[in-house]
C-alpha cells in the first residue's frame, strides 16, 4: 500500500496524507520561521539581557504597518520601504526601552505589553492611515497596486529557479519559506556572533545583576536599549514576512497571543540558546498545526480547543521532564534561582 494513500487510517484518527501534504507543511514552515524570528529577538531580550519584553507583537505590527503604509500611502517602493520600516520599528523599540530606566522586571513587562497593545488599537482605529478593521492590502479598495506586488514578482522568479533545479511543481509558498528560513539562519548566526563578544558578556552581566554591571562601569541602560533595538529590527522582519504570508496587514494578527506563542517557542527551545529557538519554533508549530488532523469524531470547534489543550499538555510534560527546554542549560536554570 503506498504511503500517500489517503485511505490509510492511523491511530487517533490521523490520516497519513497530511504528513505528505507539502502545501500544508510549507505554510507551517513559514509560520515556524516567522515565530523563530520573533523568538530570536525575545531570546536576546529575555534569555541574554534578562528583560521580560512582552511587546514582541508590537515590533511586528510597527514593522508590517510601516511597510504597508509607506508603499500604499507614501509611494515608496517595496524594497525601500523595508529598511525605512525597520528603522521605524527600531525607534519603537527604543520607546519601549525608556520605561526600563525606572521600572523593574515585572512592571517593565506590563509597560511593554501596554505599548504593543497601544500600537494595535491605534491601528484598529486610525482608519484613514491603517485601514482600521479592514486592514491594509491594496490601494483603491483592491483595484490599485498592492504592497506585496514586488514580492509576488520575486516569488515567481524564485519558483522559476526551483523549477530549473528540478522541482517540477513547486508549492506557491516555497519561495517565502526559503527566504524566511534564510533570514532565520542569518539572524541566528549574527546573534550568536555578537553574543560571544565582550558586548554580549555585558548583556549577560545585566541579566545576572544590573547593579553589579553598573558598579563595574557599564552603562547598562544603553545596552538594554541596544538589546531592544535589535529585537525590534528582527521583529520588524517577522512582521514583513507575516504580511507577505497573509497578504494583508490586519490588527487581529498582532494580538498579544502572538507574543505568548513566541514565549511558548522560547520555553520549548530553552533560554539562552539561539539554536534552541529554531528547534522550539519547529516543534511548537508542528504540534499546533499537526493536531488539526486529529479525528476522534469531534467537530471543528472541539478540535480547535483540543489542539491548544495538546500544546498546553506538551509544555507541561516538558516542564516536568526537561524544565530547561530542549537546548537550555540545566545548571544555568538551577543557579538562576
Amino acid at each position, binding site marked *: 500500500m503506498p504511503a500517500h494513500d489517503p485511505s490509510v487510517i492511523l491511530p487517533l484518527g490521523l490520516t497519513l496524507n497530511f504528513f505528505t501534504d507539502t502545501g500544508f507543511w510549507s505554510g507551517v514552515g513559514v509560520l515556524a520561521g516567522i515565530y523563530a524570528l520573533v523568538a530570536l529577538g525575545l531570546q536576546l531580550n529575555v534569555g541574554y539581557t534578562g528583560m521580560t519584553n512582552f511587546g514582541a507583537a508590537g515590533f511586528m505590527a510597527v514593522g508590517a504597518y510601516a511597510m504597508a503604509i509607506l508603499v500604499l500611502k507614501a509611494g515608496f517602493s517595496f524594497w525601500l520601504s523595508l529598511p525605512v520600516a525597520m528603522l521605524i520599528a527600531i525607534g519603537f523599540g527604543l520607546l519601549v526601552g525608556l520605561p526600563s530606566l525606572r521600572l523593574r522586571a515585572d512592571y517593565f513587562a506590563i509597560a511593554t505589553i501596554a505599548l504593543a497593545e497601544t500600537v494595535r488599537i491605534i491601528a484598529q482605529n486610525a482608519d484613514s492611515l491603517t485601514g482600521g478593521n479592514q486592514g491594509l492590502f491594496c490601494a483603491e479598495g483592491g483595484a490599485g497596486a498592492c504592497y506585496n506586488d514586488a514580492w509576488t514578482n520575486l516569488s515567481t522568479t524564485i519558483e522559476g529557479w526551483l523549477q530549473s533545479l528540478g522541482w517540477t511543481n513547486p508549492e506557491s509558498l516555497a519561495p517565502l519559506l526559503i527566504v524566511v528560513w534564510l533570514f532565520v539562519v542569518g539572524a541566528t548566526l549574527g546573534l550568536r*556572533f*555578537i553574543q560571544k*563578544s*565582550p*558586548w554580549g*558578556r*555585558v548583556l*549577560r*552581566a545585566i*541579566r*545576572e*545583576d544590573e*547593579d*553589579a*554591571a*553598573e*558598579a*563595574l*562601569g*557599564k*552603562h*547598562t541602560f544603553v545596552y538594554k536599549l*541596544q538589546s531592544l533595538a535589535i529585537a525590534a529590527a528582527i521583529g520588524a522582519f517577522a512582521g514583513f514576512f507575516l504580511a507577505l504570508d497573509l497578504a494583508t496587514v490586519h490588527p487581529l494578527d498582532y494580538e498579544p497571543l502572538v507574543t505568548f506563542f513566541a514565549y511558548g517557542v522560547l520555553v520549548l527551545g530553552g533560554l*539562552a540558546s539561539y539554536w534552541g529557538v529554531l528547534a522550539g519554533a519547529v516543534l511548537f508549530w508542528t504540534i499546533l498545526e499537526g493536531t488539526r488532523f486529529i479525528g476522534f469524531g469531534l467537530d471543528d470547534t472541539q478540535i480547535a480547543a483540543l489542539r491548544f489543550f495538546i500544546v498546553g499538555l506538551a509544555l507541561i510534560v516538558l516542564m516536568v521532564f526537561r524544565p530547561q527546554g530542549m537546548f537550555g542549560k540545566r*545548571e*544555568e536554570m538551577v*543557579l*538562576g534561582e
Partner: protein
Amino acid sequence: MNDADVDAERPNGKPILEAAGVVKRFGGIRAVNGATLDVREGSITALIGPNGAGKTTFFNVVTGFYRPDGGRAAFQGDQILGARPHAIARLGMVRTFQITKALARMPVIDNMTLAAPDQPGERLLNVIAHPRRVRRREAEVREQAIELLEVFDLARVADDYAGTLSGGQRKLLELARALMTRPRLLLLDEPMAGINPTLGRRLLDHMQRLRADEGVSFLFIEHDMGVVMNHSDRVIVMAEGRVIADGEPHEVRTDQAVIDAYLGSGTVVEDERA
C-alpha cells in the same frame, strides 16, 4: 621606596574623596544625616559604627546607587553626587556590595574579564568592524584576570559558574573583579565577613600591597575591631547618619563619643603589632 610608599607612610596626603553634608532620607528617616568625611589618597580608611549608622547608605549615595537628598561629594576633584553609578565607577571609584553580587550564571573568568576597562569589544560597532583589536585586548585582559585569580586562590575554579562558589569565595571574587577595573579608590562593604581567617589575612595583605605598589586607596566598612585597629591608618566613625569621629586608630579607640556610641567601655582591642 617609590612615591606610593611615601604616601603610605604619610597618611595625611591630599583627599581623594571629599564628602560634605551628605543627606539621604527614606520617608521620614534620615539614614545619612549630613555626613562629612575625607578619604586621604593612599590611605586604608576604615568606616565603622553601629548597625543603622548609615555606613552602607553612605556608600550607596556616593557611588550613585541612591539619589542624594543633599550635600556634595568630589572624587579626585570631580563632583560625583547624583551621577550615575557607571560614570562614577569609570572615574576610578569602585565599590563592592555587602551581599555579594557574583554573576551566578557566568563563569568565574567571565566575571573577571567583564570588569576590565577599555575593551573596545563592548561597543557593538567594534565587534563587527575591529574583531582583531577586540581579540588582542581580550587576550591581555584574560591574562590579568588569571593572575588576579591566582592571588585569591580562585584560578582552579576559573571555568566554573560563579554561582557554584562558596560564600567566602564569592567575596574574594567580588574583590578581585573590582580590582580588574584598575580603581584608584575601592569602597569595600564588609569585605571580611564570611571568609575564613587565612583568606581574610591574604585579602588584607593584598590591600597593603596594592596601596604600596599602585597607590590604590581603600575605604572599608568593617565590624571586626581587630582588623580595623591593626590594618587601617585612618578610622572614621559614624552614628545616626553622621560622622562622630575621624582620626588614627589609637585616637578613635580612646574617643569618649566613640566608646559611648559604639565600642562600649568593655571593649579591649589587642594590638597585633605590639
